[in-house]
C-alpha cells in the first residue's frame, strides 16, 4: 500500500509501485478526469501536475511520486485555473473534449510560469498535447484570453 497526496488529500493506493500514476489515478482511485491517450508520452492527454509542474502521468511511476503534490483536473483551483477554464468556456474550445483535461493542465502550467505568453511560448508549452478534433486555433486564442483576464 502506497500513499500519495492527490488534490490535497492523502490517498492510499493498493497497487504495484511500477504502475504508472495514470492508471493508479484512473483505475485504483477512480478519478477519471485524467485521460489515457497513447501511453508513450506522445499526446499529453494524461497531463497532471506534480508540485505544480505539468508531467505525463503515463510515464510517472507510482512509486516515484513520493511526497510530491499530485494535482489532476478535478483538483485545480486558484486564479490561473479559473482564468483558463473561463476562457475555454467563453471560446467554446472543446469538441469531443477528451484531450482537454491535458490541454488545460498544460495551459495552467504555462500561464503560471509566464502570465503573458507569446505565440512562441504557447508553441513550446502546448505542442506536446494532441487534439485530434483540431481545436488548436481556439486553444491558442483561449490561452491569450486567459492571460488578458489575469492581467
Amino acid at each position: 500500500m502506497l500513499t500519495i497526496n492527490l488534490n490535497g488529500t492523502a490517498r492510499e493506493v493498493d497497487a504495484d509501485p511500477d504502475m504508472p500514476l495514470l492508471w493508479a489515478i484512473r483505475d485504483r482511485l477512480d478519478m477519471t478526469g485524467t485521460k489515457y491517450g497513447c501511453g508513450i508520452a506522445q499526446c499529453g492527454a494524461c497531463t497532471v501536475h506534480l508540485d505544480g509542474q505539468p508531467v505525463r502521468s503515463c510515464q510517472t511511476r507510482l512509486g516515484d511520486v513520493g511526497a510530491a503534490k499530485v494535482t489532476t483536473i478535478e483538483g485545480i483551483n486558484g486564479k490561473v485555473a479559473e482564468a483558463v477554464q473561463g476562457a475555454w468556456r467563453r471560446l467554446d474550445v472543446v469538441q469531443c473534449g477528451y484531450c482537454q483535461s491535458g490541454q488545460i493542465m498544460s495551459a495552467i502550467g504555462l500561464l503560471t510560469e509566464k502570465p503573458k505568453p507569446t505565440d512562441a511560448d504557447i508553441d513550446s508549452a502546448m505542442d506536446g498535447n494532441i487534439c485530434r478534433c483540431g481545436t488548436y486555433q481556439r486553444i491558442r486564442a483561449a490561452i491569450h484570453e486567459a492571460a488578458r483576464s489575469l492581467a
Partner: protein
Amino acid sequence: MLKLDLTDAPVPSRRAFLGAAAGGAVLLAFRLDLRGARAAEGGPDLSKGPAQPNAFVRIAADDTVTVMIKHLDMGQGNTTGLATILADELDADWAQIRVAFAPADAKLYNNMLMGPVQGTGGSTAIANSWFQLRKAGAAARAMLVAAAADSWGVPAAEITVAKGVLSHKSGKQGRFGEFAGAAAAKPVPQEPRLKSPAEWTLIGKGVPRIDSVAKTDGSAIYSLDVRRPGQVTALVAHPPRFGASVRRVDAEAAQGMPGVVAVVTIPTGVAVIARDTWTAMKAREALRVEWDESAAERRSSDAILAEYRQTATTPGLVASQAGDADAAIKGAAKVIEAEFSFPYLAHAAMEPLNATIERAADGMFDVYAGCQIQTIEQAVVAATLGVTTDKVRLHTQWAGGSFGRRATPGADYFAEAAAIVKAWDGKAPVHLVWTREDDMAGGYYRPQVYHTVKAGLDAKGQVAGWRHTMVGKSIMIGSPFEAMLVKNGIDGTTVEGASDTPYGLPAYRFEVHNGREGVPVLWWRSVGHTHTAHVMEVVIDELAHAAGADPVAYRLSLLTRAPRLSGVLRLAAEKAGWGGKNPEKGRGLGVAVHQSFGSYVAMVADVSAGESGVKVERVIAAVDVGVAVNPDVIRAQVEGAVGFALSSVLRNRITLKDGVVQETNFDTYQPTRLTEMPRVEVHIVPSDVPPTGIGEPGVPVLAPAISNAVFAATGQRLRSLPLDLSSLRGA
C-alpha cells in the same frame, strides 16, 4: 416498421475476422438518403412526421428541461444543436436545458435518413431531426399552454411564452415546472404551429455549447470512464495479421500474476481479464499465443497498391457515363493524365475503443459505450450473448472522437466485449479496453485507393472528355448493408463525389474496381469524398491552368447548374482576396470546392513553400449548410476539419509489411500538432433552407486546396496523399 432479422447464416469466411464473434449476421433494411431531407429534391419529406414530445422532452418539477438526444456526440456538438432546435420551439430559457442520451429504441429514435436504424453518421444528426424536434418542442409548448389555460381559467390563445415563462395579460405568470404534470395529461397536438425564422430566439443565435463546462473540469464521463461496482478490465491479444485466428494459448504465466482474474479465448483473440488496465497489459504481454495464419492477409500495402495500378489498366464496372469520353479525348487539343494514390488511414480518435457490459440483477445486459449505431450494436450484443434484443439496454456515453470508427456494420468491438462476457459467464461487469496500439493496428481503415484520370481539352480550353478509373476495397460489400447500398457491384461510398460530379462535363466515364484484400476497411470522416474530392479538384485545377484560365472562374463556368456550390466558391474567393495582387515568391493560393452530405464547402489555402518546407499559413472557408442552427459550432467543425485532415495531407499513412501494420501509436502516426495549425476563417452563407450537416463536409476540400496552393507557390504538382513535400525541398 422495424425490419431487424437475426439469422444463423454463417459469416462468410473472408470476413471471419470481422464478424465471427457475432455468431450470426445482422441484416438490416438500411438506407441512407442524403438528398437534403427535402421533398423538393426527391428526398423524404420529413416535415410530415408525427409530433413526439414524449420521446424527446422531459420537463421536471424543478423546471429543468431535458432534451433526449438520439445521436452520439463524438465532438461534433450535435447535443447543443439538437437541444437548440427543440428549446426554441418550446420557448425555453437556454439555462434550463439539459441533455440526456436516449436509450436504444429504433421505433422512437431511428435516424429518419437511415430508415429503421438508430444511428449517427453521414452528417445527418441535425438534418434528420430538424422537423422532428421542432414539432416535439412546439407540441410540448402547446401542452404547457393548455395546462396553464386550465389553471388560470383563461383562453390558451391569450397565453404567451418566452424564456421558460408562461404569461397572461392579467399578470399571471408561471414556469414550465409548475405545469409539467398537468401538461402531460393533455392530448398531443399533431400539427402544432412551427415558428417562422423571424421568431427564432435560439436557432442561429449561437448559444454556448452545452458540454463546455463538464469537458473542462473533468466531470464529463466518457465510455472509458465508466466504473461499475466490481468492474474488471479486459484486454484482448489480437492476431498480428488480419484474418488469423487463435491456434493455441499458453496462459499459465499470465494467469499466475497478481490481479489477473481470468484468461479466455474468444473468436477475435485471447482476452485477459484483470482488476485494472495496467495489470491486464502486463498479463497480456505474458501470454504465449500461437496463431493460425492460414487465412491471413500477408501482403504488404505497397504490393496491394501495385496490384491496384495493374487492375486500373483493365476494364472496370461503369459507375456513370455520358457521351463518348474516349472519342472526345482522342480528338482533344490537349490531354492531361494524372494518377493518385491514397493510403490506408486510421481514425485515431483520442479515446481508444472500449465498452463495458454488465449483467444486471434483473437479467438484462447493460452496455455502456460510445454507441454510434445503437440498433446494430444492440442486436449484435444480443446475438453474441444468445439473448433477444429486448434483453440488452444501451447507455450511450460521451465519445472521445470517432471519425467513423465507432460505427462498424458488424459492431466489432461490441461483439468482442459480449464474447468475453459470454465466455466468462458474466461474473462481473467487464470493461473491454483497446490500447492505442490495439486501436491503431486493429484495422477498419479508410481504404487504400488508386485513381487514374485522363481528361481532354478542346481548342478553347473547355473540357471535352473525362475518363476516370478508381480501385479500392468496398466498405459495404460483405457488410449487412451490401444489399441496400451496393448496386451492380458498385459501392456508392467508393465513387461518391466523383461519378456524380456536379461539373458540367460533356462526355465522361467513371469506372471502378473493387479491391479484395483482407484488410478491414471503413468509412472515415467524409468517406469516399476523402479521395474523390481531391482527385476531382486537383484535376480541374490542372485543366484550368492548361487552359490558361483562372481556377475560380474556370470552376464557375462548369458549375452553372450548381448555384449553392458556386455561391460558396465565390464567397471563399472573395474573402481570401483571390485575384488580388500576386503573392510574394514562395507563397501561393489554392482553391477547392465540393458538395458532400448535402452541404457545400469551398476552401482557399494560403501556403508558403521555402527552405524550411511547406507551411499552410491560412485557410479561408465558405460553407452553405442551409439554416445555421449554431454558427459557432459550424465554424468549430470546419476549423476542426482543417486540423483533422491536415495530418493526412502532411504525413499520415497506415502501411502493412507482410501483412503486419507498421504504425501503432502517435509517434509514427502523428496527428496535426498545434504549431502546424493554420489560421482558419469560416464564412457561412445565410440561408433559410432546412439544415444539413457539417461534421464531415469540411474535410474533403482541404487536401486539394493545399495541393493546388503548393502548385501555385512552387509550380510543382503533387497529387498523391500524403503530399510528398520532401520532393519540393530538393527543387
